[in-house]
C-alpha cells in the first residue's frame, strides 16, 4: 500500500508543477514526472514479490511477474518521448517569438 501512496505523491508533485510553475521548461518536466508516476503505477500492478522475469527459460519457471503492464509502459514511454520532444520544440519556438520562458508574459490569447 505504501508504494502506491508514494506513487500517488509523485503524481501530485507533477500535477502541482503543471498547475503552479511559471517556467515553461519546469512545466514540461512536471508533465514528465506525472508520466513517470503513471508508468510506475502500471508496473506496480504487474509486480509480484519473489517472481521471476517473464521469459520462458526452463520446464518449470515458477511464478512470473505480469509482462503486459511492462509492454504497456514501454508504449507509454514512447508516447511520452514524443510529447516531450514536441513540447520542447514548441517551447524553443515560443522563446524565439517572445524572448522569455515565463508563462505570465506569454499571454497573447485571451477570452
Amino acid at each position, binding site marked *: 500500500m505504501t508504494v502506491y501512496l508514494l506513487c500517488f505523491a509523485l503524481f501530485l508533485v507533477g500535477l502541482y508543477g503543471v498547475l503552479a510553475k511559471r517556467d515553461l521548461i519546469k512545466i514540461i518536466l512536471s508533465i514528465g514526472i506525472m508520466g513517470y508516476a503513471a508508468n510506475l503505477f502500471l508496473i506496480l500492478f504487474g509486480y509480484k514479490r519473489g517472481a521471476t*522475469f517473464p*521469459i520462458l527459460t526452463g520446464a518449470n519457471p515458477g511464478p512470473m511477474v505480469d509482462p503486459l503492464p511492462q509492454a504497456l509502459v*514501454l508504449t507509454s514511454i*514512447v508516447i511520452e*518521448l514524443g510529447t516531450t*520532444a514536441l513540447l*520542447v*520544440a514548441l517551447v*524553443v*519556438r515560443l*522563446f*524565439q*517569438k*517572445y*524572448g*522569455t520562458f515565463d508563462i505570465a508574459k506569454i499571454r497573447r490569447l485571451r477570452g
Partner: protein
Amino acid sequence: MNKTGMTLIVKTVTRITVWMILLYGFYIILHGHLTPGGGFGGGVILALALLNVLLAYGRDYTGKWLNIPLLEHVESASALLFLVVGFLGIVVAGSFLANFLSKGQLFAILSAGTIPLLNIIIGFKVAMSLFLVVWVLAGIKMSKGDAV
C-alpha cells in the same frame, strides 16, 4: 582536426566507442525475440551512438559525416516496410501482421517468424526518428524574440 565540439580526449574516445555502441545496438535488435530489448531498445541505442558523435564533434561535422537526407528517407522507408510486412500477412496468412514465415526452433536466432524482421525495421525507424528529432532541435538558433 576541426575546432568545434568537445576536447580531443572526448573526440578520440567517441571515435572508438561509437562503433561498439552501434554493434551493441544491432545485437539487441537481432536478439529481440530471445532476450529483453528488441527493436525499440536497440534502436534507442543506435540513436544514442549517433548522438554521441553529435555531442562530441558538433553539428557541422556530424552533418558532413552522415547523410542526413538519406537518414530521413530510411525513416520513412522503414515505416513503409513495416506496413508491407503487415500487408504480406494479409496476402499470405489472411490477417494484418499475421506470421507467414516458419516459426523455427525455440531460442534459435532464426526463429519466431516475422518478429525478427519487424524488430529490425522498428530498430531503424526508432534510431532514425530519435536521432533526427535531436538533430532538428539542435539546429534551431535560440535568437531572442522577433515578434514581441
